[in-house]
């Protein structure tokens, strides 16, 4: 597989299928793992990093589950390709910087993504569409076991899996769920919900993970604690919390529908109107308007645009995706023009 092949492909997590996919975009689990004896990437020499990369790629070749995967060496990629992979949620922004001996392993469906030599030697990620943490856990567990059979992980009985940052020690596991909560935002209940989440030692992040702002009513919620609770317990806890948030968002949507139907309909249709006719549009405005259109589609107010099309638009209107579609470098102004053109084409064809 080449990076360009991904361009015409819809990632599994964007398909808009799976349980509760009106509110839950995707479920993700990641495991942090390191090789025994080798210094963590930030402290390792070039030779050690090279050895780690070789050991992990050799192991990956022997694993059935990774048969349809491709290994990209980050140093071989240009800036747009790297940003493209970040936009698809296949790797972190951090992984796209200082790229020596870093690699990314991705399977054809973009369900599995393994970052090699990021903050830890291995960051194994599994993405599913909709609210699907348990399935994600089962798959990543099998992959982790297969890798553990071939690699010697850094592990202690009392501290668990050893990671570069002590905030990940223990299970090395982070489960996160990407939620679309427009009704909680519109009814100004979101602060209350987010405050409650923080009290329960969960974190909320924006679309692109650590350090990014929430935008377009999207929130990524994940566990903060990784030591002292088993993997299943952590997943159960996130699951329970997300269930409650889904319920609250559903209620808030019902209340908006019964009390402010005209206002809501107006906002949703105006958003669609702008997207269908704008000539210049930023990615921030695009995300905000698409969020409203998605809500309209979920509530049955917009009938001819499905969730998958909307999800895809979120991704292909991002800067690196636009530049890859156009096959050339574009300035910010040029992108705003091309973005508007692409959205018009996609929405007016339907």
């Amino acid at each position, binding site marked *: 597989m080449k990076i360009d092949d991904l361009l015409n492909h819809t990632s599994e997590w964007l398909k808009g299928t799976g349980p509760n996919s009106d509110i839950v975009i995707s479920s993700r689990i990641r495991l942090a793992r390191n090789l*025994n*004896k080798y210094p*963590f990437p930030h402290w390792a020499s070039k030779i050690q990093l090279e050895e780690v990369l070789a050991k992990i790629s050799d192991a990956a070749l022997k694993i059935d589950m990774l048969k349809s995967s491709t290994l990209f060496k980050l140093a071989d990629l240009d800036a747009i390709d790297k940003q493209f992979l970040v936009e698809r949620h296949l790797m972190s922004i951090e992984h796209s910087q200082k790229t020596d001996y870093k690699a990314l392993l991705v399977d054809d469906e973009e369900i599995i993504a393994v970052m090699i030599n990021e903050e830890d030697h291995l960051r194994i990620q599994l993405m599913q569409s909709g609210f699907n943490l348990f399935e994600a856990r089962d798959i990543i567990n099998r992959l982790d076991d297969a890798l553990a059979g071939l690699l010697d992980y850094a592990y202690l009985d009392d501290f*668990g899996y*050893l990671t570069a940052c*002590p905030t990940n020690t223990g299970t090395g596991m982070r489960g996160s769920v990407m939620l679309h909560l427009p009704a909680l935002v519109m009814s100004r209940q979101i602060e209350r919900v987010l405050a409650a989440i923080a009290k329960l030692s969960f974190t909320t992040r924006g679309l692109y993970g650590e350090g990014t702002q929430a935008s377009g009513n999207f929130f990524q919620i994940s566990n903060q*604690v990784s030591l*002292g609770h088993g993997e299943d317990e952590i997943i159960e806890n996130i699951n329970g919390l997300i269930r409650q948030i889904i319920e609250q968002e559903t209620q808030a949507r019902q209340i908006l529908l019964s009390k402010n139907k005209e206002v809501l309909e107006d906002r949703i249709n105006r958003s669609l109107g702008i997207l269908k006719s704008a000539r210049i549009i930023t990615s921030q405005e695009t995300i905000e308007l698409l969020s409203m259109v998605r809500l309209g589609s979920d509530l049955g107010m917009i009938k001819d645009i499905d969730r998958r099309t909307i999800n895809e638009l979120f991704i292909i209107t991002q800067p690196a995706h636009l530049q890859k579609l156009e096959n050339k470098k574009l300035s910010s102004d040029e*992108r705003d023009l091309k973005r508007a053109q692409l959205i018009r084409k996609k929405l007016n064809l339907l």
Partner: protein
Amino acid sequence: MLCDICKKNPATVHLTEIIDEQMNELHLCEDCARNKSAAMEQQFGLSDLLAGMADFEKPDKDEENVAVKCPNCNLTYADFKKIGRLGCGGCYNAFRKYLAPLLKRIHGSNQHVGKSPLIKEKVISKPGRKKMDLEGLKAGMQKAIQREDFEEAARLRDQIKKLSSEQGSGVKES
């Protein structure tokens, strides 16, 4: 290079911000960096935060712990306090005394519960594997006693006890 904000002090903190697709490099002095908004703090706050947490560890004996060095990767505890990252898996044993309370503060616990990479191996090969483990643990305990690390020695002793009793029952079954 002088700080981008006050233009007086030397810039020691270098940040890359990405706002609305625009990448922006900022070079700040420590004071201005600290004063920057709460949102920015999140980005360089983690290592500071960890270092701060590690700091309240017995402030009087500060001098004693900073010099401790990991025998596997040579990272010192002072390095960890500066960068907020450990050097290798070996650091967890080398700095166990200081890390155990730190982990407890971060996670509310310092005892791992959950998956281990050995489970599969333990299921497949039984007595042979355990005998080897047992010998390794005994050797480790002797070494710990020699270097007067009695906490580690006691931990290994408990593991040996646990493993020996498991092995005993295994033999009976067969």
